[in-house]
């Protein structure tokens, strides 16, 4: 679950990291009032920052500097309600519902620092670079030697000597080095305490008088840990997510919208991906990823069917169930029952394999509903792709 900049900064501020003063605004008037407060407190300029989860906001016009409160209101008014397109969004962009109005900082030096999971070392890692403000993936491509890493040992976490070493390796000294080291340690503690999968400050600013400020911040929280962070779960902003993906999540189904025409429903994530790949090998393209789970109960199949049929381009459906512990005859009955509750006006290919597969196929053949029954995954994919192109022509 991604958090907005203003949410991430509030979490850092609570943990003693210095962040610029700022206020959230949902209208131009609120933005003007926020800017007036910041100017009154001594800011020379204020930043108006679109609060979206996607990165690359600056390049997409989502960050503007204003010299007057009226100017801040004007920028905010233009951003709010618009779709912001950045290098990390699709061409449709993402909606801007709030902006963050923030005081400026006296920037002498910009650094990059983040904590993330190093999957191959199986522990968290601090990633830092002296090239702050830049996209870290870009730095990794163009200047990989500029990236400094410190791993957090399991059970021990990040130790003070590591952050001190990191600060010196970033070329800092004196007060700035001490401040940066302390900030990185606080960021690491926040990463751990909040069960983050990413905690990023980019840029981490060293000011002219060697203070250390988090000018931007981003947290991504491990969904599997939200059960123990009720306060964080409340920060969820679903406005940038696909409505169908949200609906699926409410039913504990895993769904991802894609842009092909063959809707698919599969039990198990790996087999669901494999089924998508097989559809592509057969000359078509999947309309979605959908894992109904290992059990594939009637209720789950019905919910899954309803959601996948909402995909606008679906012109055929492929149901692929490998019956292990769950018996295919029960799945077949579930599919028939589920299809009785959903309007289906495209061909449906069903492939059952595993426990009681033949009994399951027989139940489907004898039902009033018209299924195309397949035995192998390849046959199923070919039938579904043919059916989808037949529908498209008709």
């Amino acid at each position, binding site marked *: 679950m991604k958090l907005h900049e203003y949410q991430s900064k509030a979490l850092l501020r609570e943990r003693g990291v210095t962040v610029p003063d700022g206020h959230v605004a949902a209208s131009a008037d609120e933005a003007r009032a926020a800017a007036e407060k910041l100017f009154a407190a001594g800011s020379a300029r204020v930043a108006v920052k679109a609060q979206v989860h996607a990165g690359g906001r600056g390049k997409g016009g989502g960050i503007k500097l204003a010299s007057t409160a009226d100017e801040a209101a004007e920028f905010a008014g233009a951003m709010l309600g618009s779709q912001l397109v950045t290098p990390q969004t699709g061409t449709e962009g993402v909606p801007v519902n709030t902006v963050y109005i923030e005081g400026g900082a006296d920037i002498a030096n910009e650094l990059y620092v983040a904590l993330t999971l190093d*999957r191959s070392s199986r522990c968290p890692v601090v990633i830092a670079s002296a090239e702050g403000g830049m996209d870290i993936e870009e730095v990794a491509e163009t200047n990989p030697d500029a990236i400094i890493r410190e791993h957090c040992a399991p*059970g021990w976490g990040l130790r003070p000597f590591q952050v001190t070493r990191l600060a010196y390796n970033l070329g800092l000294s004196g007060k700035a080095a001490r401040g940066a080291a302390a900030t990185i340690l606080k960021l690491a503690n926040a990463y751990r305490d909040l069960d983050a999968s990413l905690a990023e400050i980019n840029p981490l600013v060293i000011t002219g008088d060697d203070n250390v400020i988090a000018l931007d911040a981003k947290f991504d929280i491990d*969904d599997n840990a939200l059960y*123990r962070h009720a306060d964080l779960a409340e920060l969820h902003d679903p406005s940038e997510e696909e409505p169908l993906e949200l609906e699926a999540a409410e039913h504990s189904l895993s769904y991802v919208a894609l842009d092909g025409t063959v809707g698919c429903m599969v039990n*198990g*994530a790996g087999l669901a*991906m494999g089924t998508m*790949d097989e559809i592509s090998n057969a000359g078509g393209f999947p309309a979605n990823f959908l894992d109904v789970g290992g059990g594939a109960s009637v209720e789950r199949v019905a919910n899954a069917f309803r959601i996948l049929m909402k995909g606008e381009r679906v012109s055929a459906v492929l149901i692929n169930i490998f019956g*292990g512990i769950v018996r295919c005859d029960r799945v077949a009955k579930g599919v028939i029952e589920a299809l009785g509750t959903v309007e289906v006006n495209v061909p449906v290919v069903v492939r059952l394999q595993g426990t009681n597969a033949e009994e399951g196929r027989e139940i489907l053949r004898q039902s009033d509903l018209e299924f195309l029954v397949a035995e192998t995954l390849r046959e199923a994919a070919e039938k579904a792709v043919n059916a989808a192109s037949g529908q498209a022509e008709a």
Partner: protein
Amino acid sequence: MSIFVDSDSRILVQGITGSEGSFHARQCIEYGSNVVAGVTPGKGGQMFEDTVPVFNTVAEAVTATGADVSLIFVPPPFAADAVMEAADAGVRLAICITEGVPALDMVDVVGYCNARGTRLIGPNCPGVITPGQCKVGIMPGFVHKEGRVGVISRSGTLTYEAVDQLTRVGIGQSTCIGIGGDPVIGTTHRDCLERFAEDEGTDAVVMIGEIGGSGEEEAAAYIADDYPLPVIAFIAGQTAPPGKRMGHAGAIIAGGKGTAAEKMKALTAAGAHVVESPSEIGAKVLEVLGD
């Protein structure tokens, strides 16, 4: 021959009185696995199915029964602690089926297990089966057949699909391991490849990977260095979009890294037989073994 588990394995089931645990413990027993103990705190002294004693703690169960493998069906908030309890009690192999364990919990758990010499498989995995000898997991036993091909996979049903294809073309399996779909797992593709290389009962390895992480690339680097067995590989998620989690917590192309194309390229370069379609796994193994 086999790796990790065989007919001598003495299995204990953590969470044996829960709905998942009891169902699958029964299935494992029916398959012929030697389930010697169950653990559920507060239920010590009971008997499961009139034959398996239940204990309050893993330590007690190990002392009383000599269990050396633990199969864990404990809900996500308690799963990390359950694995650590197994490791602390000296269990040789802990297999964690639970899906939904926070990733940072697993960081400490993997460190804890490594320090105690306990191998962890999973979490979020179907478990391990040595056909004809021992099933320690939730996979359907009947699709498997005794034989000489090892199977390693990050997924559940896709593994059953691949195994079913093998069995249908007459190829049996030595051991099949579901290593799990989470970002932090105890045992990797590479770890399993190492063990299969030492196993006299394994002639070839089927490796099923998926998008996300770099476990397949690390496996590729390992097999490139004179790996003694043929490896047949499939990577799921060739059509998956970047930045989207595909069901498994670990199946995500992040920052352009972890694509199926990269993994297939690395494995091909390492000398593995990479198939593009999941339907071709069985036929490809047959072809490779026939050479």
